[in-house]
């Protein structure tokens, strides 16, 4: 019975199936919202799923110059990593499959997913992909600094009850919020979650920050040569990453929500995911044109990092 329950958690809810479903719905809704903002009708909400199916049915083409094994294999590794990353995040206060989780592990697993995309692009040996991967890496450096500040601020605040005075464990962070109220409403952490809202779109590579995949400039950059099933895997990775980031936000800042009814909790967290998606992805997507690579870097290392640092100092001083 225990085994079946764990299998259910891993495979169905809040595991694989749920992650994929949520990812697709989030991306579909995001596209729809952006379309409405631009006065278009927009694609159906499950368009990402159609895209995925269509990619799966297409022939996979490998460039002559590519390193075949790595080129074909790495998208699946990336998909596997992002699917397992989601299991580290406590969803709506539910018990984790791994028992424990850690913000630094999540940070590095998210990095690993981007690295998979970079290695895949490099293995295709296309010059477009070469430009794309360099931009992906610069984007990664850009959001890493504010992300680190946010993580440290949350770790410090949640560690007030513990012996060490800090904790990177996401389970502890959620438990602390359950007793002391969500960080979302905590005055010292307001700059931290504002900065986190900026980190999310860059981490996922959504529109104003999608320098790595700029379709119109560098032919989708990292994905330039991909087709067929590997491309489908990358598309799905993108969707799941969207869900992982929004639910990470929910766990880090809205972990204190507890109505006593599990179903209601889940629904509220799903709502939070959609709200985060709307604020941090759909709005800038609809409002801004794509940044240049060095603009992304400067924006994140000055403005966003500044907000995040203010948050860290506020928490440090104990406001």
């Amino acid at each position, binding site marked *: 019975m225990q085994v079946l329950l764990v299998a259910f958690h891993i495979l169905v809810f809040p595991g694989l199936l749920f992650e994929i479903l949520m990812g697709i719905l989030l991306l579909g809704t995001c596209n729809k919202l952006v379309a409405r903002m631009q006065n278009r009708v927009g694609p159906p909400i499950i368009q990402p799923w159609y895209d995925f199916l269509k990619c799966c049915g297409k022939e996979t083409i490998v460039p*002559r110059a590519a390193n075949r094994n790595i080129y074909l294999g790495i998208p699946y590794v990336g998909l596997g990593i992002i699917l397992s990353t989601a299991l580290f995040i406590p969803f709506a206060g539910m018990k984790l499959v791994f028992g424990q989780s850690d913000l*630094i*592990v999540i940070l590095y697993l998210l990095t690993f997913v981007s*690295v998979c995309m970079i290695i895949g692009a490099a*293995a295709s*040996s296309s*010059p477009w992909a070469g430009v794309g991967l360099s931009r992906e*890496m610069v984007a990664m450096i850009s959001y890493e600094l504010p992300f680190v500040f946010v993580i440290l601020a949350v770790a410090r605040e949640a560690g007030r009850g513990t012996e060490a005075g800090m904790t990177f464990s996401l389970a502890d962070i959620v438990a602390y919020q359950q007793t002391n109220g969500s960080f979302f409403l905590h005055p010292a952490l307001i700059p931290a979650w504002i900065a986190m809202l900026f980190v999310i779109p860059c981490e996922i590579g959504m529109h104003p920050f999608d320098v790595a995949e700029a379709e119109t400039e560098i032919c989708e950059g990292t994905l330039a040569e991909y087709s*067929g099933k590997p491309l489908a895997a990358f598309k799905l990775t993108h969707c799941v990453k969207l869900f992982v980031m929004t639910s990470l936000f929910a766990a880090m800042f809205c972990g204190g929500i507890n109505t006593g009814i599990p179903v209601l909790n889940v629904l509220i967290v799903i709502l939070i995911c959609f709200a985060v998606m709307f604020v941090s992805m759909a709005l800038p997507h609809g409002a801004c044109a794509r940044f240049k690579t060095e603009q992304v870097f400067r924006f994140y290392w000055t403005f966003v990092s500044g907000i995040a640092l203010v948050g860290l100092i506020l928490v*440090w001083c104990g406001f």
Partner: protein
Amino acid sequence: MSAAVSNFPIIAIITFFLGAFLIALIGRLNKVLRNVLVFISVTVPLVLMCLLIKPVMTDGQIVAYWMGNWAPVSDWAIGIGIEVDALGLFFGLIVTLAAFVSALYSFTYMNRDDSLENYYTLFLMLSGALLGLTQSGDLFNIFVMIEIMTMTIVALTAFRVDYDGALEGGLKYMVVGSIGSTCLLVGIAMTYRQLHTLNLAQIASKLPGNMNAVTIAAFAFLLVGFITKASLFPFHPIEADAQTVAPASISLMISGVITKCGVYGLIRVCYNLFQNIDAPSVEILITGFGALSCFICVTMAFNQHNFKRLLAFHSISQVGYVIAAAGLGTALGLNAGLYHAMNHLLFKGLLFLCAGAVEYAAGTLDLDRLGGLSKKMPKTCALFLIGAASISGLPPFNGFASKWLIYQASFEKGVSSGNFYFVVICVICLISSVLTLASFVKVSQSVFFGQLNPEFEDTKEVPAAMRIPMWILAVLCIVTGLFPNQVMKYVTGPAANAAINVGTYIDTMLGQNTAAEYGIASQATTEIGKIGIWSPVSWLLLLLIITCAVCLVSVIEDPKKTTEEERFEYNKSKGRIAKFSRDGFKAAGKELPEAENAPAEEYDKPGHHRNPVLSGSTMTFTGERDPKYEVFFSGEMPEYSQVGGSDLFWGFKHSWRRYFSYWRKWHSGIVNDYVLYGVAALAFVLLYAVLFV
């Protein structure tokens, strides 16, 4: 303790030196005999060190050996002592493992050089000196070993004299290294003048009661001496020059072991001799040096065009991590530092050997020229990716486990001491990690992936004999990453405890209760909690299951396609085969029948219409490549369009151009400047020590 065990360390050291002298005598006679001799001289010490693991690491004994049986009389140590506690053994294991791997690699890697008997003589002397340094219980002996080490490494750096910059690298190392040696000698002399002894245990017992201006100055001199040996900022330029021009097997020794000896010295001085690591001013000084080196060198590595030079800067950056963690003065911090020191040998050694393999196969290390070697050297590429993932700290490789500990330790230290400075250290470490990743993305793109430069068309995979030592390191990288709790329990934990429990060390050497007489309290053995929040094995299992499932689903293909011919016809009928796909691309299944291979007479037959869709040769009639079918720029002339290493991170470099041009001035390549930095660092540390310590 059995009597045999206490002889192991000295036998190990003697084996290295004996091997060196024997090879100098008879190495010229027979190549096979020489190699066998080298193999024996590196294997015996490794085995002896491994045999010491059980008594020293597990049972917590301290192996003492007095040369010529000059045991101390009434706690006054006159003879030369060899004393191996868990800390010494930990570094001894690092030395012997590195020597073993490096010698194994040299057998093939160095076969294009001549006068190899000199190489092996110097190499074994270097290994012996390094081992002696870690096992010695005598401050002056440590200095002697450091001198042997410096002189042999200078000769080995310049071993390939015809290499561009080899002599220069050796000379710089000698000049700046001698500053470090002088500092050490002065520091030792001052300590001796104050305490009238050179034995480590005796110094440790007497120093805490004898802190005055002279011993504090001695502390500063010793500190700067070991910082030079660890090549921290501002001594890093010489290290980069030396590691670039040395043979790859020697670069491994410099980056993996010689810098570690500086780390070992720092830990011994701060934790055991002066026992002042708990003082906030010392912590701030040492972690500051570590974090500065960590960040500056990782950004310098960003800009390099030479594979080995890039790795060299990363060595110092990683040693910066080690020092930043060890300087925190907490048990967790020291554990993290030692763990990272071990990991650094494993992954950086692996990367240097990969660089050596690329150099061996392609003849160059220029990141702007290389590219696309993964098709020519797939096995080296796989090994490189393991090393790169480890150094970038991607889970579940070993770099992640130790970096995780470093972040945890530095942030915890910041919170417990209420000092924001340590949080800054934590942030610097985290950011350096992503920059490390970026520069290894650069290496993988510009050496192994990307387009193949036509001049490396006939590059071949390196021989298996060179890949075996690389595999040893790669497997160790994965194992130490997967079992962090076991590593901490059996390897780094005892070593860190040995460094902290100086009382036990003194008692073993000078008799029971000596430490208590001098008022040195014995510390309780610190238990480090597990890295419980991260269990790499279960995650890896899950990842494997998920990935396999995903792959299985993707492999179940369209069942209609049975044979290649049918599949081709099927695709054609569906219109799936585009104009270019016949030639510009291969289909995912197997290679499509190439029309190119059809006999040329086919085209000459009367009535044969050359249809690009059906016949689709990529060659024009004149035998040149038809630009229409070029892979990436269809319709244009094919060109070599690799994004070179220097241009890869333009968006980042552009924003940091002022920073980079500032540091460019620092790395002038003039040895006078480097000496000046050394003197300035010495002046700074002296002033700081006198004012604050």
